[in-house]
């Protein structure tokens, strides 16, 4: 880290915010050390959201544990349950039917859409642009309706189960038709919004050059996901995941690493997600959606990485008598938290919250028990 930037003596004042604050919807404590309203150092205290899900999972039957992981985060709930099932499937050598994989991917990409739309809406809210925020929430409703239609619930849909997907999430002709229509609508609305967004001089002047994270710093701070890709590193686990093999999509990267490129990054990723969903709907294979012919056995520690809306998600646990042992979950927001602190240094205090929001914080994901060795 740039020594001059962080280690110089802070002279003026500390402004603490949170854990209840309009810009950060979620509870966390932020201490900003300011000098004439310029942030010289920042400290984020997380832990408000720590509920110890791993502790509760310890010793639960694996099916129950899977559905519990969904409650880690309401934004990327499908990612957690998918990765948890995937871990058990790798451990127990369960072959997932192809149709189930496609449905999981449709759910995952829908979730990416709604997560990115939420990110954009939250970003606009922190910018102080209520109108844009409301428009984005309105566009997002299309995705929420689709998710509600498939999973039966707008937020926690629980589509993945061990060996496939829940029968409720079976996609029939009518649902496929609705997804296709929804994607057309979304593409039109998002591109219209993006045109309007980038042509707004006031918004552009607020977000250009703010919250800079250089590529070197992003790698050193171990950023992941879109936050890393917005600094120019083409790092996307979807390119190596076998589930995504049949799909044709681009890994989006941006060069600048400021709030503008982070926001545009999400807009472009939305289009890629729409592309993947269209392919999945077009090529959806026939066949069963669950594989029930598997046997429980004891397995040592198994791990699984997938790419979720915010980055790389890691789950690992061992199985003993069909029960989960030594569960470890590492969420992408946890990896990005260093970047959040770093990005707001050197900017005006109004931009500080924006610099944090640009890394897509999700503190319910973040609050895992971790050990920081050395940064």
């Amino acid at each position: 880290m740039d020594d001059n930037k962080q280690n110089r003596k802070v002279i003026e004042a500390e402004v603490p915010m949170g854990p209840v604050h309009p810009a950060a919807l979620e509870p966390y404590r932020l201490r900003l050390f300011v000098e004439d309203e310029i942030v010289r150092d920042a400290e984020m205290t997380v832990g408000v959201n720590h509920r110890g899900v791993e502790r509760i999972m310890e010793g639960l039957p694996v099916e129950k544990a899977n559905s519990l992981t969904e409650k880690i985060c309401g934004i990327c709930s499908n990612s957690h349950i998918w990765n948890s099932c995937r871990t058990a499937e790798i451990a127990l050598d369960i072959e997932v039917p192809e149709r189930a994989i496609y449905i999981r991917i449709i759910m995952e990409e829908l979730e990416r859409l709604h997560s990115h739309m939420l990110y954009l809406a939250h970003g606009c809210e922190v910018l102080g642009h209520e109108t844009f925020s409301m428009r984005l929430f309105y566009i997002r409703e299309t995705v929420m309706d689709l998710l509600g239609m498939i999973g039966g619930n707008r937020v926690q849909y629980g589509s993945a189960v061990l060996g496939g997907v829940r029968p409720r999430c079976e996609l029939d002709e009518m649902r496929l038709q609705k997804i296709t229509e929804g994607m057309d609508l979304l593409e039109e609305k998002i591109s219209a919004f993006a045109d309007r967004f980038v042509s707004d001089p006031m918004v552009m002047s607020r977000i250009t050059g703010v919250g800079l994270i250089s590529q070197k710093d992003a790698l050193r701070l171990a950023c992941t996901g879109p936050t890393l890709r917005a600094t120019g590193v083409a790092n996307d686990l979807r390119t190596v995941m076998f589930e995504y093999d049949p799909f044709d999509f681009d890994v989006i990267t941006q060069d600048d690493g400021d709030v503008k490129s982070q926001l545009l990054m999400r807009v472009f990723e939305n289009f890629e997600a729409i592309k993947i969903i269209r392919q999945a709907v077009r090529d959806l294979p026939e066949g069963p959606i669950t594989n029930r012919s598997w046997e429980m056995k004891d397995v040592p520690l198994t791990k699984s990485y997938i790419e979720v809306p915010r980055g790389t998600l890691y789950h690992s646990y061992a199985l003993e008598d069909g029960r989960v042992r030594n569960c470890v979950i590492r969420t992408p927001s946890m990896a990005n938290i260093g970047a959040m602190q770093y990005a707001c240094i050197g900017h005006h205090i109004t931009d500080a919250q924006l610099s944090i929001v640009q890394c897509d914080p999700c503190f319910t994901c973040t609050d895992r028990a971790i050990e920081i060795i050395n940064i």
Partner: protein
Amino acid sequence: MSLKSYSRGRAIHVMLVYTGGCNGCDIEIVNCILSPKFDAEQYKVFLTWNPREADVLVVTGPVTKHNEKPLREIYKAIPEPKAVVAAGACALMGGVYKNCHGDIPSEEIAGPVDQIIPVDAKVPGCAVRPQDIVAGLVSALPLLLNAD
């Protein structure tokens, strides 16, 4: 209806406090207020982030240990008459986080909301639907309207 009750019914300021839930309810409540599709403002519900301005406190989440004192402080800061709406399964009974196994309570959770502050209306759901939030606010209204 007196002017007092009438004016209280026509301008309801809502404050949200998230106490460590999974974000699902939180987003749905923000959705309920910010999204033009639900638009709580047409029911005279206004969003505020200042306890001094608020009439109704909407609490989500199982109240983690770190959030217990802030929640009490914010509740204390709201001037009377006030109502509290607990939204979501976690706020009502601790949800999946309340107990580790069987009846062993989790060390992280300070208990559901009604152990910390008095709750006037409960909105069930995991996650709550935006429509239910508006319904919950309405069910807490008589308390505000009939107060001194």
